[in-house]
């Protein structure tokens, strides 16, 4: 292991309701769902209809742009509903689960000897391929491309995030196999990035990858930040990223030939009675996990973390990429002179709240934005939480101006929404940075 890369610009938002180290086995949920909305820009082509019986690993729908990319059933059962929204866009495919999982069998034996193409085909058919995210733009990976490198962030630094050394305990062998597969996919290097101060013993047996240590606060765990520090994305480069828990899925699949998507997730936040780790499955309904586990009704349930996650209902479903459910209070109340005399502590990077900034340990943050949207006035704020060599405010302004050339020049290829989530958090003018950036990424993706 070579150098340690110290991330200085950033902040850890410390929230109440951090998970205890205990791993609970959750009740088996009655329903599961795969949501096409979890995948950026995906237009699904349906392969099943309501009432069909499926096995775990059967194709539910594919990507209209690339029919080879399958999205498969995480469980066996009956298609309960195909939920549609505006203009009949498919929002979710719900499956009523069998009590005993029937797996579709894939021939993965002797994977060590399989070629890159054979491995790719298996990943595509099994529905594991979508776990690989392609940069620029953070879209589904294009199987016809060989990336410059594959990057895996071995830790999660987001608020209330899972400690992977707990959630992936016992998965060491699967991780090892998974990384072997990644090495086949990457012509260049596979990077595994770990945190200096965090337990990373689960990765001890992994060989032949480039390990880099990072230190410092969030966003040190974001793979985009790590790529920028290790081997930044230039125009024309294609880089793939994948999360360790998904590498473990791949490993398990190649070991067993079954699509077994059992995972340990975190349920945390100030409104959770027993914040802890829970073993469940991908696409699981959260209703069972949250029943009798919430302290209030007026809460926001988020699949993912509070900075980048997706709002779901209390009977919603765990997002495809998420290993975390965050529950925080809604902030839909007026606060008299709250901008001047805050009536309760709130997380902040601003020294205008010295007591909160320097002395308060954890916060019960809610969803009130604490102010209204304004034009940009303050400068130098985003820079404090942006460790990449990117000029964040200028980049966002170039997106607002829809100046494609400037966006490219200022490094839009290197970022996806999550990389600028902290900029959005600290913004005095309450600009929806992630939404703006998302529009810019979409525009660039269309043009290129």
């Amino acid at each position, binding site marked *: 292991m070579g150098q340690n890369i110290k991330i200085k610009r950033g902040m850890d938002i410390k929230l109440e309701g951090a998970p205890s180290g205990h791993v609970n086995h959750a009740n088996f949920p009655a329903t599961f769902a795969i949501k096409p909305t979890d995948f950026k820009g995906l237009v699904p082509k349906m392969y099943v209809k309501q009432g069909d019986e499926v096995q775990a690993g059967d194709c539910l729908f594919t990507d209209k742009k690339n029919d080879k990319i399958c999205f498969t059933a995480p469980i066996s059962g009956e298609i309960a509903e195909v939920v549609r929204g505006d203009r009949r866009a498919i929002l979710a495919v719900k499956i009523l689960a069998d009590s005993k999982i029937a797996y579709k069998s894939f021939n993965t034996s002797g994977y060590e000897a399989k070629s890159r193409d054979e491995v790719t085909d298996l990943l595509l058919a099994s529905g594991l391929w979508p776990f690989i995210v392609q940069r620029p733009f953070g879209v589904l990976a294009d199987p016809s491309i060989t990336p410059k490198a594959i990057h895996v962030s071995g830790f999660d630094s987001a608020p209330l995030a899972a400690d992977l050394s707990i959630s992936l305990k016992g998965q060491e062998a699967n991780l090892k196999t998974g990384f072997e597969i990644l090495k086949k996919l990457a012509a260049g290097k596979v990077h595994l990035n770990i945190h200096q101060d965090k337990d990373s013993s689960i990765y001890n047996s992994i060989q032949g990858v480039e390990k880099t240590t990072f230190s410092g606060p969030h966003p040190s765990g974001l793979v985009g930040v790590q790529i920028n520090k290790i081997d930044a994305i230039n125009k*024309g480069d294609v880089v793939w990223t994948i999360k360790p828990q998904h590498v473990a899925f791949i490993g398990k699949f190649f070991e067993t030939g079954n699509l077994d998507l059992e995972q340990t997730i975190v349920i945390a936040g100030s409104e959770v009675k027993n914040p802890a780790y829970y073993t469940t499955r991908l696409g699981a309904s959260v209703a069972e996990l949250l029943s009798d586990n919430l302290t209030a009704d007026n809460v926001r349930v988020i699949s993912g973390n509070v*900075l980048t996650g997706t709002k779901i209902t209390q009977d919603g479903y765990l997002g495809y990429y998420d290993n975390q459910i*965050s529950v925080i209070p809604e902030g839909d109340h007026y606060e008299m002179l709250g901008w001047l005399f805050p009536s309760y502590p709130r997380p902040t990077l*601003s020294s205008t709240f010295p007591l909160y900034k320097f002395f308060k340990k954890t916060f019960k943050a809610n969803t*009130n934005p604490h*102010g209204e949207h304004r034009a940009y006035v303050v400068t130098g704020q985003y820079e404090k939480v942006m460790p990449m060599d990117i000029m964040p405010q200028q980049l966002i302004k170039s997106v607002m101006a829809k100046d494609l050339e400037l966006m490219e020049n200022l490094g839009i290829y290197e970022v996806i929404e999550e990389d600028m989530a902290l900029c*959005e958090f*600290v913004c005095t*003018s309450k600009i929806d940075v992630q939404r703006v950036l998302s529009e810019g990424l979409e525009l660039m993706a269309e043009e290129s």
Partner: protein
Amino acid sequence: MKFLRDQVDKLKPTFSEGGKLSFLHSTFDALETFLFVPNHTTKSGGHIRDGIDLKRTMFLVVIALLPALLFGMWNLGYQFHRATGIEASLLENFWYGMLQTLPIIIVSYGVGLGIEMAFAQFKGHPVNEGFLVTGLLIPMVMPADIPLWMVGLATAFAVIIGKEVFGGTGMNLLNPALTARMFLYIGYTPEMSGEKCWVPIADGMATVDGYSGATTLGNVGVASANGTPWSDSLLSWGTTAMDSILGTIPGSIAETSVVAVLIGAIILIAAGIGSWKIMISTVIGALFMGGVLNLAGGNAWYDMPAHYHLIIGGFMFGTVFMTTDPVSAAQTERGKWIYGFFIGLLTVLIRVFNPGYPEGIMMAILLMNVFAPLIDYSVIQSNIKMRLKRVKA
């Protein structure tokens, strides 16, 4: 709180679309959000947001301005009583200055907020908090003897031409408060400079023997033109360098006290609102240019020790409160160093080489406001070049 909220909710329909007073919608909205942080929740992106908002930010700047303003009020009374030889207590001095200053503040806020709210209503956007600061800065940089109609006219000019035509707060090129001052300076020079405007003394009122209301800037300018060498006697009538630091000298209402302004600077920097980079680089720029001129030598301006530039005129006030306006300043971190340095440098250059304009910092800031986008452009280009170089490497 509940009672007040109920009252607001009761009134709200009257001011909303379709209500009788819907033409005051923006005004009502501004007052409502002043009283109550809205009950909105996050819709897209991050679910939680920082506690800071523009109201708090602007309010902190107002707080930082208060020491200078309160001192300025007292100083106004002190200067008046010193000039007329009338004995007065601390409170009497303050009371006198407050009575002189309050009407100017009221006119500035009244005219400015009125225009802001009308524009907000017309363009259908919320009232921005920026004028809370601008509305106070304008009176603070006026001479006490300014006619109120001029304050109103200048404020209207600053808000409309200086800000709203560009799209409102956040979009303006020039610092609005300095735009107001510049407008009066060019249009009504006699009321804005000389020795009579700083301390309001009625015509025919007796003054102490030898009294002159001229500022140090004015004195040194005259001395340079006449070939009188530099000495401390060129400081404003009957004052010392220490008076310049404390602020017991004639000048614009709140610009005189280095101490009061520095208290404001500490508040701004501690709160993370004012850019210390700009403040420090402005001081460095002035000391650098002053030092170079000291080495050259020649007349009173050349020979005045460089650090005197920091304590006379509006230098400190401009450095702390005007250069750091984030909208009109350079917006890139490296750009801020360059921006400040040139303001300091130009301030001294204008003071020394341009006898027509005794105060240089106003000109220097406005000039650098215009160049700030160019500075940012070059900083941004260097970031772009770095990225392009990486491709080739």
